[in-house]
């Protein structure tokens, strides 16, 4: 996918609202045709503002947006080859399912035969043929979301923008619709930009994840890259569970941390400020094993697939361990080791 020319380019995008709030700063992003890119970050980080700027609902204060080589920075939303799925679905409550889906093509004066064919195909793709004459308020949340998706796809846009489309669905339905969206995206091959604050959603659906904080991009990478090799303390902390420790450099590939001296395969870079390890990286071992860390168990929480243990080494901050079927040790102490290749160094401060 990276071999193809970028389909959508946002270059040096900045957005300052009328009240002086700086929502976006120096955003640079390019999305290849057919790519599924997710904007991930906490509430207020600017991901929806960026999506709405790409869609044309906000005019950027600085920067430039291009679609297939055309400058669309100031083009209104109705003139962009994009369609949006809104968080609240934004279906027209007075129109039936079929009329909602047909709204865009009718608006764009697509010939009647082509419109009807497109409508039938989409109704079948989203499995809503039996509900075509119903009003949106007669549908479940999942069905409404599928209508919103079909309505966006009816425009046959180059890019589909999703603004937290699953946030109003329950967990089971969210998983189902998530797979449906990804399946349709792969089948039809449209480019997708997807906003979410749900890291599981981002990791499971995306070709690439853009992690945002305070109106800036912290890291762009594949789901594996942002999870396994976070570049900043914020990314490490926001995506998945992480133990983040201050460290001091020692000789011979060692660093000193509040849980003891640790061996690392790669020495920390010049800007590194924290050492990070994931709770599932810990390997239980005997107390007298080489590099063993012995900690006091403070809390145990059964999570189904694994057990989360909260431990403390002397006066260190509490650390988390995810171990399969870990029982509560009789003496309240547990020993584990951290493989050197699983220890990473990150830059920046914690949020």
């Amino acid at each position, binding site marked *: 996918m990276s071999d193809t020319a970028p389909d959508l380019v946002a270059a040096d995008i900045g957005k300052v609202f009328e009240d002086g709030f700086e929502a976006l700063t120096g955003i640079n992003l390019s999305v290849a045709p057919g790519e599924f890119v997710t904007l991930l970050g906490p509430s207020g980080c600017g991901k929806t503002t960026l999506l709405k700027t790409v*869609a044309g*609902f906000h005019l950027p204060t600085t920067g430039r947006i291009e679609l297939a080589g055309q400058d669309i920075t100031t083009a*209104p*939303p*109705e003139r962009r080859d*994009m*369609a*949006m799925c*809104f*968080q*609240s679905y*934004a*279906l*027209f*409550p*007075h129109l039936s399912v079929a009329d909602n889906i047909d*709204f*865009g093509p009718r*608006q*764009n004066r697509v010939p009647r035969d082509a419109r009807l064919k497109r409508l039938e195909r989409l109704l079948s793709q989203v499995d809503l043929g039996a509900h075509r004459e119903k009003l949106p308020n007669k549908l479940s949340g999942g069905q409404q979301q599928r209508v919103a998706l079909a*309505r966006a796809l009816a*425009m046959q846009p180059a890019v589909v923008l999703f603004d937290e489309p699953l946030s109003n669905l329950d967990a089971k339905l969210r998983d189902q619709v998530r797979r449906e969206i990804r399946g349709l995206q792969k089948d039809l091959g449209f480019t997708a930009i997807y906003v979410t604050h749900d890291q599981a959603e981002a990791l499971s659906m995306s070709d690439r994840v853009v992690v945002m904080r305070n109106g800036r991009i912290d890291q762009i990478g594949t789901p594996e890259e942002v999870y396994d090799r976070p570049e900043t303390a914020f990314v490490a902390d926001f995506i998945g569970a992480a133990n983040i420790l201050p460290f001091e450099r020692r000789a011979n590939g060692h660093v000193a941390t509040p849980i003891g001296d640790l061996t690392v395969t790669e020495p920390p870079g010049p800007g590194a400020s924290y050492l990070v390890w994931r709770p599932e990286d810990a390997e239980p071992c005997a107390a007298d094993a080489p590099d063993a860390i012995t900690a006091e168990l403070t809390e145990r929480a059964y999570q189904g697939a694994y057990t989360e243990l909260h431990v403390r080494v002397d006066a260190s901050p509490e650390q988390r361990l995810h171990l399969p079927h870990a029982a509560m040790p009789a003496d309240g102490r547990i020993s584990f080791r951290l493989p050197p290749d699983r220890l990473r160094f990150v830059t920046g401060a914690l949020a």
Partner: protein
Amino acid sequence: MNWQRSGTIVLLLMPGLGLILVMIGSVFYVAVMQSFGFFNLVGEDQFSLEHWRDVLDSRAFSRAFQYSAYIATVSAIGSVILAYPIAIWLRRPFRGSLTVSAVLKAPLFVPGLVAAFLFLNIVAYHGVLNQLMMWLGVIDEPIRMQNDRNAYGVIFLQIWKNMPFALLLLSGAVQAISDEVLDAARDLGAGPFDRFRKVIAPLTVSAMQAALIIIFIGAAGDFAFQVTAGPTNVQSMAQFMVFLKDSFGRWNQAAVVGVCLMGLALGGSLLLAIASRFLLRGGRW
């Protein structure tokens, strides 16, 4: 639901609903009965269709009916047409929007007769407008605008007085439409006019109907604006009704006009309501 519970509900509703039914019902009953020769203030009570025949045969009545229907229709539609863009403009608060909204609603607090007299001061032969236009050199001598034959003055007053009411009803309905729904329409290619025609108007049709009905009924029964600023060659239904009662003491014929006025108010407002819903929602209720 047992009879005790039903009885309790009826008793609880009696003070409000009962009063309304008695007040409205009695007025309507007396008017209808009087039009057929009963409740005579002078002479014997006697059933008669003569009053209906006399009134319906009268050219003055048919002109008054058409005139009132015209004033009511144009005023209702005009008020709503003017109120919509303002309601959309004020949909999202901005600096000064509260003041603008308050000023626009000020006519609601001015009695109709006072407004009509103020209007006369402006459009009179030696009124403010003529004086201003002469001072500016736009005209050489005053124009006669008062009591114009097309009733533009009455329509202006009706819209001036009723537009704030339409605005009040439409503002709430327009504000209830979410930004995302309007953004979605825009995203799907709808420009400003199509967003109004295909989304805003159908979603606010109930408020629009309420505004049309209430303004139509009020304007159809107008007396104050008509006698002050209306044309002198035609009477409104209310004016004609008073004319019959005052000039000849023909209470029964006045009652016929009154019943016809109620019929016009009911029929006309229903017609407007049905037409607006049919036009905007394609008959979908």
